[in-house]
């Protein structure tokens, strides 16, 4: 399956989905004009990919090399938060089905609010995040 490489704009994050190297990354700001049109195809594609892995009984594919999700967000509005939550729930559900997933939640040094947002999400989906503080994305 082909991945995704959607460039970052002032209003929407960069989306990088690379099934070959087992990596998904979201970076930047998120307040797209039509939040549903932006996120729906992304979530659909990610869901289809993991459903295929499960239907082909390739769950062990990620046993040694887990699928890595990097979230490097600067700002997102509440409508985007809903879709980010949907994506995170999807990750947790597939992890529960036996796929080895890891979530890395980045935040800029001093941006404790963004770390707290990650903690809220982690709490909400009952799935541990790895928090990484950086100087810049």
């Amino acid at each position, binding site marked *: 399956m082909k991945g995704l490489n959607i460039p970052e704009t002032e209003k929407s994050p960069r989306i990088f989905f690379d099934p070959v190297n087992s990596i998904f990354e979201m970076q930047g700001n998120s307040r797209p004009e039509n939040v*549903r049109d932006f996120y729906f195809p992304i979530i659909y594609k990610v869901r289809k990919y993991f459903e295929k892995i499960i239907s082909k009984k390739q769950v062990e594919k990620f046993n040694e090399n887990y699928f890595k999700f990097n979230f490097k967000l600067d*700002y997102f509005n*509440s*409508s985007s*938060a*809903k879709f980010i*939550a949907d994506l995170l729930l999807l990750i947790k559900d597939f992890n529960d089905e036996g796929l080895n997933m890891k979530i890395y939640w980045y935040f800029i040094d*001093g941006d404790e*609010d963004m770390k707290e947002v990650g903690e809220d999400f982690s709490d909400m989906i009952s799935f541990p995040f790895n928090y990484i503080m950086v100087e810049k994305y």
Partner: protein
Amino acid sequence: MKSYDVVVNHKGFVDLDIIDDMLHHLKIYLAQKESDKILRKRVYGLSVECLDNILKHSDLLEEEHELIINFPPRFIIEKIAENYLIHTGNIILNENKLDVVFRLEELNNLGAEEVNDLYKRSLANAEISAKGGAGLGLIVMAKTTREKIRYDFEKINEKFSYFAMQLNLKK
């Protein structure tokens, strides 16, 4: 004497381009004049939520053009000493007033932890409306300010009221 600054003062029609322009200028102001990075992001985040809310109600204005003159959408940010006051105003259908009052009163009666719990529950259960909203905006405002949201309604006619809201963001 406390310092005072009017950061944004908009009264009039609002669309996506006007919002982008306001947010662009706000970003420049905050980068130049607000040294506290957390406060900077909170002011920006609250502004996006407020403007999203105003925009979602703006489709009413097309059918009631003459109302805009006397009851224009309003978005004002004042900086008083180290704190920010955000004022918003927009026309609202009277039939939606009770729902807004219920949601604001619910938020105003919760403590910070309870607002946080409500946010997490709402995030999990939110549905995106036809206008693209997740219904989380007011909760995010309460969560960010950790202050009671002040509000008022002025009846315009049998169909519409003017809804004014004030957010107090303390350093």
